[in-house]
C-alpha cells in the first residue's frame, strides 16, 4: 500500500470526548510507551485500519485549520530519539474509547492497571508474543510506522494524520500530558520555520481538480441506454467513444444490466469485438470508454457515393463472422446484431459493439432447457423463432441477424422492415415463403404459433429477388444463414468455412475509407434524413403556396415520392 493512502488513525469522536469531558491527560510513563507500541502492532493497527476510511475527511478538515501549530510540534520533536510516533496516542485513545472510559475523577494511576489488565487479552487473541517486541520488527503490519528509533523528527506521512490530535492534546497541555516525550520537550518549544510539505503530502490537503481528461467533440449515438459521444483524450490526443449511462430513470441504484454489460466487455479480447478501455465517473455521470470508430455499418451503407467491391464486402463480413464466432465460442449471445452496432474504422476494420442485451448461455444439466426473454434484438433483425415467442433459443438468433446484414451489404437496405412483430413475421414469410413441414419441423411447439399460423401457402420469392443482386456464393451463404429452423442455420464457425471466403476475389481492406469525408454513423444519417425530410416538406409547402398563384405552372416537387426517404430505421426495442 502506498503511503499516500494510509488511513489516518484515531476516530475523531475520541478527540471531542477528550476535550469535553476530560481534564488534561495523565502523564504516561515511558514504560507504557513500548508496550503501547506493541499493542498497537498487534491489535490497534488492525482495528484502526478498518476504521480509517471514514475518519479520513474529518481528519483532513481539522488538519487544515491547525497547520502551523502542528508544524511546531513536528519540528520540536526533532530531537526525540525513540518512542512511537504520536499517532499511537490516538490508537490508545481509540482503544480506550471503545471501553467504558474513566472520568477525570478517577485516580491518575488508573491507566497502568487498566492497560495491563486488558492487554493480555489481546495477546491471547492475536497471539503476539510479548510486550517487548519492537514495532519495527513486524513486517507487513498495516502501519508499522517508523520503527522506534527511526529518524528523529523526520516528517513522513506516518505522522501526518495525527495533526489535529496534536493540536487538541497539545493545546491543552503540551509537555504535560498525552505525549510520550512530554517531559523531554519541556515547556514551549521554540518556534521553528514552517516546513514545506512535499507534493505527496499535500495530497490529502489540497485537491486540485485536473482538467477533464476527455474532451467531448460531438454526439455520435443515442439509445435507450443513454448517449454516445466522440471525445478526445487530452493527454494522449486519441479519440475515444464515451458511452454515458442513463441513470436518471434508475431508482434501484446502478442498473444491473449495465453491470452485466461491463462484466462481459471486460472479459473480451478479440480484434473484432469492442474492448472497454476504462470506466469513468464524472459530474455524477458514469461513462464507459471505448476506442473510437469512425463509421458504423448502417451509416456507411447510406453513403451516397460509396462503392463497395466484392472483396470489400467480404472483408467486412468475414470480420463480422470472426467476431461473432469468438463470442459464440465463449457462450455469449449478443442479442442485438444490427448495422448500427457494427463499427468500422478508417480502413474497414470491424468491431461488434453494444452488449447491452447480451448474455452468457446458462450451463444446463441433462433435461433442462434454457429460458430467456424473447423481447430482444431490434425487430428488423429478429429471427422468426423469437417472433413466435420462443424462450428456448441459442446462438442461432445472432446468425439470422448476420444473414440479414449480408443481404444489406449488397442491397444497402434492410431485407425485412416490419413495424411490429406481426408485420415483421409477415415480411419474412412473404419473402421466404411460409415454412413447410420440412423447413421447420418444430414450429408447432412455439408459443405463438397457433396465434400466427399462416393461413395460406406462400412460395418463396427470395431467390428471384436477391440472386440477381448478389454474387453467387454470397447468395448461397445468405440462404443458409437465413434458414427458418434454428437448427438448420449455419453456425458462425461453419459460415467461416463457406466457399464465399475461399473463392476469388479474396477479402481486401477498405483503404479508400480514409478518403471518405466525414464520419458515417446511423445517428448522423438519421439526422441528415430528418433535415432532408424537413427541406422537402418546406419545399412542398412553398410549392403548394406558389401553386395557388400559378396553378398552371406545376413544379414537379409534388411528385417526389415519399419512399425516396427511408423510414428512420427500426424501432428501438426495450
Amino acid at each position, binding site marked *: 500500500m502506498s503511503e499516500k493512502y494510509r488511513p489516518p488513525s484515531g476516530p475523531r469522536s475520541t478527540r471531542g470526548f477528550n476535550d469535553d469531558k476530560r481534564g488534561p491527560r495523565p502523564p504516561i510513563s515511558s514504560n507504557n510507551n513500548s508496550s503501547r507500541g506493541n499493542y498497537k502492532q498487534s491489535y490497534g493497527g488492525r482495528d484502526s485500519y478498518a476504521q480509517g476510511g471514514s475518519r479520513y475527511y474529518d481528519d483532513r478538515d481539522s488538519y487544515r485549520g491547525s497547520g502551523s501549530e502542528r508544524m511546531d510540534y513536528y519540528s520540536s520533536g526533532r530531537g526525540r530519539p525513540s518512542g512511537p510516533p504520536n499517532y499511537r496516542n490516538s490508537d490508545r485513545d481509540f482503544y480506550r474509547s471503545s471501553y467504558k472510559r474513566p472520568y477525570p475523577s478517577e485516580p491518575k494511576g488508573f491507566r497502568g492497571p487498566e492497560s495491563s489488565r486488558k492487554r493480555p487479552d489481546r495477546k491471547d487473541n492475536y497471539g503476539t508474543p510479548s510486550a517487548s517486541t519492537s514495532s519495527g520488527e513486524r513486517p507487513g503490519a498495516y502501519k508499522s510506522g517508523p520503527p522506534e528509533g527511526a529518524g528523529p523528527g523526520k516528517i513522513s506521512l506516518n505522522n501526518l494524520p495525527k495533526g489535529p490530535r496534536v493540536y487538541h492534546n497539545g493545546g491543552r497541555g503540551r509537555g504535560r500530558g498525552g505525549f510520550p516525550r512530554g517531559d523531554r520537550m519541556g515547556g514551549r518549544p521554540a518556534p521553528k520555520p514552517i516546513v514545506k510539505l512535499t507534493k505527496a503530502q499535500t495530497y490529502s490537503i489540497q485537491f486540485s481538480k485536473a482538467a477533464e481528461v476527455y474532451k467531448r467533440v460531438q454526439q455520435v449515438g443515442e439509445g435507450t441506454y443513454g448517449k454516445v459521444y466522440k471525445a478526445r483524450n487530452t493527454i494522449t490526443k486519441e479519440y475515444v467513444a464515451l458511452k454515458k449511462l442513463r441513470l436518471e430513470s434508475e431508482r434501484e441504484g446502478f442498473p444491473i444490466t449495465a453491470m452485466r454489460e461491463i462484466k462481459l466487455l471486460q472479459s473480451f479480447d478479440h480484434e473484432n469485438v469492442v474492448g472497454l478501455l476504462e470506466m469513468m465517473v464524472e459530474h455524477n455521470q458514469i461513462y464507459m470508454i471505448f476506442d473510437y470508430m469512425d463509421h458504423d455499418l448502417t451509416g456507411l451503407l447510406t453513403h451516397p457515393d460509396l462503392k463497395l467491391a466484392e472483396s470489400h464486402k467480404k472483408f467486412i463480413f468475414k470480420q463480422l463472422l470472426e467476431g461473432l464466432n469468438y463470442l459464440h465460442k465463449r457462450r455469449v449471445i449478443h442479442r442485438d446484431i444490427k448495422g448500427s452496432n457494427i463499427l468500422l474504422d478508417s480502413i474497414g476494420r470491424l468491431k461488434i459493439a453494444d452488449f447491452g442485451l447480451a448474455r452468457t448461455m446458462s450451463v444446463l444439466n441433462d433435461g433442462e432447457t434454457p*429460458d430467456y426473454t424473447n423481447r430482444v434484438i431490434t425487430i428488423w433483425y429478429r429471427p422468426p423463432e423469437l417472433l413466435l415467442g420462443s424462450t428456448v433459443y441459442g446462438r442461432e438468433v445472432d446468425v439470422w441477424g448476420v444473414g440479414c446484414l449480408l443481404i444489406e451489404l449488397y442491397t444497402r437496405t434492410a431485407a425485412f422492415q416490419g413495424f411490429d412483430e406481426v408485420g415483421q413475421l409477415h415480411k419474412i414469410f412473404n419473402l421466404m415463403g411460409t415454412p413447410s413441414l420440412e423447413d421447420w419441423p418444430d414450429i408447432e411447439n412455439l408459443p*405463438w404459433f397457433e396465434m400466427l399460423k399462416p393461413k395460406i401457402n406462400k412460395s418463396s420469392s427470395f431467390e428471384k429477388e436477391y440472386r440477381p443482386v448478389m454474387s453467387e456464393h454470397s447468395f448461397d451463404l445468405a440462404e443458409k444463414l437465413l434458414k427458418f429452423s434454428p437448427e438448420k442455420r449455419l453456425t458462425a464457425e461453419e459460415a467461416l468455412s463457406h466457399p464465399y471466403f475461399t473463392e476469388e476475389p479474396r477479402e481486401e481492406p477498405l483503404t479508400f475509407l480514409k478518403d471518405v469525408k466525414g464520419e458515417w454513423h446511423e445517428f448522423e444519417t438519421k439526422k441528415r434524413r430528418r433535415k432532408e425530410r424537413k427541406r422537402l416538406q418546406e419545399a412542398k409547402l412553398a410549392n403548394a403556396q406558389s401553386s395557388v398563384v400559378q396553378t398552371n405552372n406545376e413544379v414537379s416537387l409534388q411528385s417526389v415520392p415519399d419512399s425516396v426517404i427511408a423510414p428512420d430505421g427500426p424501432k428501438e426495442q426495450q
Partner: protein
Amino acid sequence: MDSFEATTQFSQMLRNITPVMQNLTRAAHFAIKNHEQEDYLFHSIIEVLDDPNTELNTKSTIFQFIEVLMHEAFQVSQQPKSHYSYPYIHTLKSSLPNILLKVLPGANNSSLHNVYNSLKNISKTCKTAYEEYDNKYSSINTLLSEAELENIDANIPYPDIKIEDEINATDPVITTWDLLIKKKKQSQYERLRLLKHHKVVEGSVSEEDMFSFQPNKTTKDQADASSNAALVFTKKQILMRMEDDRESHKRSKENLWVVNRPKDSNSLTEDEFLVYYWNKFGNVTEEEDKSFRESLNDLNAMVAQSYKDKQF
C-alpha cells in the same frame, strides 16, 4: 356480502381480468374469501366464459385464473388449523374438460400454448401424473394415425371435438389432457391439410390474408364481424397477448430464487446447501470418472517417482 353482491363483483373482476399475477391472485383471494358462495361464483366463471362478447384473450386469462385459484385454494387449505376445506377444487376439476372447450372454441386454438402451460400447473397442483401426456403434446407429429393421414390426403376436415367422446378417463384432469392433445392434433392436422391442398400463392400477400386475423373494425359487414369477434383475434389483440405473455414470463422468473424454508429458520441450512449443489451438478459420467482416475494415478506415479528412496 350477500351472494348477489359477490357474484356481480366477481364477474366484473373476471371480465376485466389481465394476466398480471397480482390481478389473478386478487381475484382468486376474493373467490376464496367468499367460498360460502362457491356455487354462485363458480357459475359466474362459466357465465363469463359462455358470454359471446368475451374476448378470446380474456378467456385464456380466465383459464390462467383457474390455475391460480386452484393453487391458492390448495395452499390455504393445507395450512395448519385452516378452516378451508379445498373450496372450488372439486367443482373446477370436474368441469375442467368443459372449460377447456370453452377457452379453445371451434377450430381456433390461438390460446393453446397458454392453456397447455396452465394445465401443466394444474396437474402439478392436483398431483396428477401428466408426463406421458406432456410428451405426447410436444411430439404431436407422430400421433396422427394412418386413418387421419388418409383423411388429410382426402382433404377431409378434422371432426369436431366433443366432450361426449371422452368419458373413459376417471380423472377429469386426464380427460382434459386428452382433449388438449386432440386440440393440438386438430391444429396440426389442419396445417398439414392446408400445406397439402391449398394452392401456393406466388405474389405478395397482405398481412390480413396471411394470418387471417380480423381486420380492424372498419369492415363493411359489421354485424358479421361482431358475431365473429369471440373467435378471431385482431392484430391489436395478438400484440397485446404477446406483451402479456412476456410480462407473465418475466414474472414467473422473478420467483425462481424463492426457497421454501421453515418459518423459524432464516438462514441457509446444511441440507439446503447440500441439496442445491447436489441438484446443480449432474452425475459423474463413467468417462469423466475414468479420466479423473487416470490423471489421479498419473499424479500419484509422478509423486512416487520424485522420491529418492522407494517408498512403499
